[in-house]
Each structure stands twice: as structure tokens, then as C-alpha cells.
């Protein structure tokens, strides 16, 4: 290994193309202000190497309009706060690079959630309501285990399969992309169905299929899904929503007949 190497040509320090002037078309509205009407406002910004929508929106706020409302927390693709509609597609803004977008970038808040202002929506309230309805926690066989004792073993593959579904960050993109959610206000969405699939898989949860049927065996649950699968296409965590919903529907149909 040589002690000095050529800086790779693709490294961000040496961008090949001249910097673009980006135009952000942002949908703005404050529903609590009686004077406010939803409208689009355009902000122009010079693109920078490695610019994400997190960086761009903060630059707009710091230099162009201090009142622009949006949500970021981890800005690392972990927390799911920054779901928004980017050029017509729901996604996480923090890990969207401007270089992957055209010069004109349209930003709108996620539909289906209560609007707080501009790009900020109340996903937290929706998710809490869903969690309460579907009881998205382990209904433990053993309520108060002796914590001094060695833990109950679990098959390593099963733990991995549970984690695969546990990776959901409740960003709300699947609900925003869902046809049923537009028509049925109480539809639990792919996020809710995936959680039921996750707890149904977990041997630490003592609920039976009949009990899960009580939670999702309706048109607001698994039978409301029209299999358009926008959820599957937009999920930032690439959760296997298509197979989980199909699997859960079969299982619930069986539980319903019994």
C-alpha cells in the first residue's frame, strides 16, 4: 500500500460539472392562520457537493425564509421524521441527494396526516392512535420475569426474521402512498399490518389468530388493502410489505372462517 495515493476523480472535492441553480417549489400553508391559503413558494439555491434535502432546507431557512416549517431529527435516515413528497413520491428528505433530482424540485407535506404547517405533519398522533388500536406491544406470557435469571432462548434465525419486520421507523410514507388510506380514514396502513405480522411471528406474544382477527379482520384492516402496493414501492426501509400483507390476509381469512 503506497503512502500517497491519487485522490479519486469521483471524490466530492472535485465535482466535474458546474454547480446548478436549484429551484425548490415548496407547498406552504399554516392551517391555524385564517389568512393563510395553501400556495407554492419558490426558493432558489446554489447546489453544493453532497447536498441533501436536509442541508438544502436548512440553508433556505437560514438564508431565505426563517419561518419555513419542516421536521428533521436524526438527519441520518434512522428516525423517520422527515417523510415528505419529493417530486410526487413520498420519501425521507434527509437521505435524498439533490444531485439525484432535476433542477426543479417540488416539495409537499405527506398527505393523510394532519398538517401542522408547510412540510410538517403530525405523524406521531396518527401512529400513537394506530398503536393503541392494534395494541402493538408484546402481550407477554410471563408478566414479571425474574430478571436475575438467564433469559429465555430464542432461535437465532427467528430473532433475525422478527428484526427484519421490527425495522419499521413509522415515517408514514406507506400511508401517504396508500390508495385505501385516501378513502378510509381509519385504515391502519401497511405500517399497522406489518406490526401485526411482526407480533404474530413473536413467540413472546401470547395472542392467537382469533385475537389478531379482532384487530385487523375488517376493511379498516387487512381486508381493506386493494393490493396497489404503493407502500411496498416507497418504504425507505425496504420492508417486505407485499409478502407480509398477503400472508396476513390469508391467515386472517382462515381465522375468520374458523
Amino acid at each position, binding site marked *: *500500500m503506497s*503512502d*500517497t*495515493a491519487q*485522490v*479519486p476523480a*469521483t471524490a*466530492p*472535492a472535485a465535482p466535474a460539472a458546474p454547480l446548478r441553480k436549484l429551484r425548490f417549489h415548496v407547498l406552504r400553508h*399554516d392551517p391555524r392562520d385564517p389568512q393563510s391559503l395553501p400556495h407554492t413558494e419558490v426558493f432558489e439555491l446554489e447546489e453544493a*457537493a*453532497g447536498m*441533501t434535502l436536509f*442541508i438544502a432546507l436548512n440553508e433556505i431557512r*437560514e438564508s431565505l425564509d*426563517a*419561518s419555513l*416549517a419542516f421536521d*428533521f*431529527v*436524526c*438527519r*441520518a*435516515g*434512522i*428516525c*423517520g*421524521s422527515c417523510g415528505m413528497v419529493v417530486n410526487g413520491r413520498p420519501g425521507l428528505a434527509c*437521505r435524498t441527494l439533490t444531485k439525484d433530482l432535476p433542477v426543479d424540485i417540488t416539495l409537499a407535506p405527506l398527505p393523510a396526516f394532519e398538517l*401542522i*404547517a408547510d412540510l410538517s405533519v403530525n405523524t*406521531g398522533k396518527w*401512529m*400513537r392512535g394506530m*398503536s*393503541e388500536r392494534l*395494541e*402493538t*406491544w*408484546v402481550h407477554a406470557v*410471563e408478566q414479571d420475569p425474574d*430478571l*436475575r*435469571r*438467564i*433469559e*429465555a*432462548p*430464542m*432461535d*437465532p434465525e427467528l430473532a*433475525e426474521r422478527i*428484526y427484519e419486520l*421490527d*425495522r419499521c*421507523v*413509522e415515517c408514514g410514507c406507506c400511508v401517504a402512498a396508500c390508495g385505501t388510506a385516501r378513502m378510509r380514514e381509519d385504515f391502519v396502513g401497511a405500517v399497522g399490518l406489518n406490526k401485526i405480522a411482526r*407480533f404474530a411471528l*413473536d413467540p*413472546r406474544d401470547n395472542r392467537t389468530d382469533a385475537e389478531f382477527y379482532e384487530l385487523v379482520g375488517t376493511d379498516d384492516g387487512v381486508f381493506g388493502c386493494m393490493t396497489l402496493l404503493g407502500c411496498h414501492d416507497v418504504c425507505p426501509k425496504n420492508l417486505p410489505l407485499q409478502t407480509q400483507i398477503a400472508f396476513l390476509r390469508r391467515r386472517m381469512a382462515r381465522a375468520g372462517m374458523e
Partner: protein
Amino acid sequence: MKVIYTDVLVIGGGLAGLRIAIGARRRGHDAIVLSLVPPKRSHSAAAQGGMQASLGNVIKGQGDNEDVHFEDTVKGSDWGADQQVVRMFVNTAPKAVRELAAWGVPWSRVRQGDREVIINSQKVTITERGEAHGLVAQRDFGGTKKWRTCYVSDGTGHAMLFAVGDQAIAAGVPVHERKEAIALIHDGARCYGAVVRDLITGELTAYVAKATAIATGGAGRVYRVTTNAVICEGIGAALALETGVAALGNMEAVQFHPTGIFPAGILVTEGCRGDGGLLRDANGHRFMPDYEPEKKELASRDVVSRRMEEHIRKGHGAKSRFGEHLWLDITQLGRHHIEHNLREVKEICQYFLGVDPVKDWIAVRPAQHYTMGGVRTKYTGESPTLRGLFAAGEAACWDMHGFNRLGGNSVAETVVAGMIVGEFIADFIESPKGDLDIPTALVREAVAAERAKLDALLQGGGTERADALKIEMQQVMTDRVGIFRRGADLEEAVHRLQGLLVRSRSIGLRHHADGPNPELVTAYRTQKMLKVALCIATGALTRTESRGAHFREDFPRRDDSHWLKRTLATWKEPGDTLPCLAYEPLDVLSMELPPGWRGYGNKDYLDHPDTPRRADELQQLRERLHGADRHAVQAEIMPYEHLLPARFRGRNERIDERMP
């Protein structure tokens, strides 16, 4: 005026706060959690690596126990930690992992038989025991003697936070989201709750509670470059500080991580260097061997960070619009290794830098990572000076990390502190001390005072710009109160921060709405953050030694003879521009592990006069107890179990330490 009454007001909806609320509920008390964001979005979710707990299930963890975890943690702290608190922590950590397992966390599990792992860049085959099959697995982490870090694939914090968040929902704990505590209600002796601002409507509400707990995480955002989430602004610490009574402990103890991606500050794991990644400068030169010929890129976290900054200072940083940085080069590891062993790094590079680390270099620079200091509390989590005020997790200084925290001990602390402090809060409100006898005038005046401050910002006609002051503060902190600290720089920093604080008192806004107004939020938070920043900078200036992550170029030695003590910062008057510093000595004669060499880093330190005496005492004691079991020896040296809540006492069972 709206007033909400509850038993326990928890400020902060991360792992520590949620676990406190669950604990209080289980003891039959009402609890309300305030959270700036939906609680599952808290920064706890970002703890990807894992949680330390001495279960000793994997073969490389065999022989691990509380004693080994204790020693690693105290050495890591550079003897700044409270050793009794460390003992409480290491004894509860295995119980916390087991509780979380029962709550549904899909911990990665041990698979019996042979497997191939990389140790010191060498492929090695190890064999897991049959009796460990299916138990919670542990991985290797820096600064630990045994493999002790329990993990959930690459998303430990996320899985923990969702399990605990869902348990809070199951327990019926109300979380008041998008609500921000902006002042504590107190009379100088007892805390009665907080004045809370609704971030959507702007409305102020008084929350009156028997016990108030601060669990707001760290203060990383007082720095320009940090791995912390944007909500980690140290506001909880500022709330305590602004009482004038509660103290902040060891705020100058700030940890930096060598490889934050640049400019976003998002962390890429140490594993990159562990597996053979190299650090390069603007000219492509591999510079670490010039500074550290022996350990090169694999010197300890603080040493690598220091060398990187030194190299940038010498003018060798790569320049970009956002400032200077260095390169992490893992191209030599090859596609297969990167896509299989460093998948997370590949994704971060792809999403946040738009580069492929198989062929491109990664722009990195050391970034602020962790706040060891925080609201000073007793081992119960309660402030020794403001009754009814508690703190836990990164926001607190109870103090288990001293001057440097070990990887995997932070997310472990969140749940362990939540368990322990939750019980002590329940004890407090069940005792006469917890009785509430609050004059309504105190509540009214507290709300009116906050209303007046907000109105001054909204309508006061000030001319200073909040975001400009905030950026300048962050730049001062990153430039002068960072990894390398020097008296002259720190003096300059304190001076400039004082100037910024004075200017922050005449902030004016361009937008005057009281509802969802991000400019207003920046304004009042910046005023608070500047006070926290001043505690860090003055603490660092005054501490004329180097200890753990606090490194003074002009005082490079650890000096136990003068500085084996904890910094306590208070803010006496609202109009002051500096905190008041006091010092709390650590008692060597009661330590289980008297100060010595950490086993890595600088060997050159000045002893405390009591150290040799304590070492002798301990040697005699160990000789006298020769042959006794380890628990008995420990109990003789430094008893601690009586300090734990009854619920969490007791030994921890292991494969090699079976319980009857």
C-alpha cells in the same frame, strides 16, 4: 392560565424518560412525558452498535462479569466516575437486557458451533457453546476486556426504543408530543414542574408535578459538527442551570468521534479502521503513521481525533464549501468485504455522500459525539440542591462516565438509569418529601415571566439574528473548545461566547407568529444553549490538566493531586454572563479501584496523595479475604447493593455462574 397536575413530569421521550414513566406507572403513579418530537424519533434510536451488559454468553465473553465491566468503565472514565454508581449500573445492566428481551427486543442470538470472525485484522475461527445457543449474543467493542456488547443486528437503539415506546403505550403513559419545557417552576428549594410551550399553537401551560425528571439527552448541537440529532441542544441542562440552584457536573467532559462523515457529521463505524481502512489528507498522503508510528489509524478514539485535527491545523485538510476535512479510504478492503461486513457504511456513503466506498474515499472529520456532563444528581437521580428535580441518561451526571464514556455504555445507561431513577422517584412521591404544597402565585408568576420573555422576542424590536448567533456559537465551540484545548483559545472562546450571550438578549425576529415559528424556537433555545456552552468553555479553561476526553495541550498530564474532582457549574443570576464554578472532590479512600494507568494512552500522570494508602489498604484486605468469593470481596471493599432499589438487587445468573 392552563394548569395540568400530575405525579411525575418527565421531560424527554427517549429511552431514559420513557423507562422512568413506565416505572412510575407500575408503582401506581401518574406520569406525563413531554417530547419535542414523537418519542420513537428520539436520538436513542441512533445507538446502532449495542448495549454493554456482562451476560458472558458468547465464548469471547466467557469469564465476563460485573467486576470486569466495572473496571473497564472506571478506567474508561479516567477515574472521574462515581464508583458506587458504576457498580449500581453494571449490576443492573444484565437485568435491563433481560427485561428488554421479555418486552420483545429481537436481540441477536448465539448460534452454537464454529464461526469465522475478524480479530486484529486476522480471520479466526471460534466455537460457540451448545448451552449458549439461542441466548443473547455479544460483540466486540473498544475499551472492553471481554465481548460484552449486546446488539440487535445494526439497529440496537431503534429496536430498544420501539419496544420501550410500545410498553409506555401499553402502560397508558400519555406522551404530550411537540411540547417543550421552557422553564422549571421552583422556589429555590423545591421543583414543582415546568412551564411548557406548545410547538404547534404557541400556547403556554403550567405542568405541576410532585417530581420532575429531565431526560433530554446531550448537548451536541452547541457544536457546529456533531453526530447528535438536531434536537440534542442541551435544553434540559439549561433548564436546570437557569434555576440558579441546580448544578451541572463536568460539562467540559465532551467526547469526539474520529470519523463523522463530512459535513453532515453522521457517524461511520470504527470498524472501518479496525478492518484496515486508512486516513488520508488533501494530497492523498496517509498521515497517521507520521504521528503514531506504532498504532497508526488504530490508536484510541481520542488520540486519532487529536491527530486528525492537528493535521488539519497544519494546513493539510481537503477544502470544500463547508470547510476542511480528511479522507477515510477503505477501497483496499474490496467490494465483497464492504458489502458484507460494512453494509451500513456503504449505505451511509450512498445516501448521504452519493459515493461508493468501494472505489471512492469518504470525507470525514472528528465530530462531537457525547456529553459526559449534565445535571448533577445523587445516585438516586435527584438533584442534591433542588428537591423534586431528577435527571437521567445523557442529560444527567450521576456520574458513571467521568471524563470519557465507553462505547455501548450510553444506551445501556439510558434504560438502567430509567429503571433505577424511576423507582427512586416513586419512593420520593410516596414519602412526605414528595408532598406538594405549592403557592398558586408561584405558578402564575412563572408562566407570566416566560410569556414576557417570549413577547420580548416577538415584539421587542431587537436587532440580533438568532440563527447567526447560534452558528457563531457553534463555530466558536468547534474551533476552540474541541478536541485540542489551549488556555489562550479557551479564553478567547469564553470571551466571544459572553459577547454572544449579551447580544442574544436583544434578538429580534422577522416572523412574529407565536404558533409553529421555527425562528422563535431558535431564538429562545439559542439563549439557553449559550449558557450551556459557557459552562463547557469555562470548565475547560479552568481545568488545567488532561483527563479522558478533556485534553489540554498546555497541561497534557492527568493531575490527580489537584484535579481529582468534579466540576459543578451554577448560574446565579439571570443577568450574569458566566457560570459560577465549584468543585466536589472524589474520595480516593473509599474507591474500589484507586487511580492508576488506564492500560492505554498517557502513562504520565500525577498521583493523588491518598492513592498509595488506599492501594495498600486494598492489598491487605484482598490478602485477608483470599479465597472468598468475588461478591464477598467486593462487598468488603466498597458496599453498594444497599443503594439499589430493592427490585433490582441480586446477582445475575450466567452459564458459568448458575443460580440454585
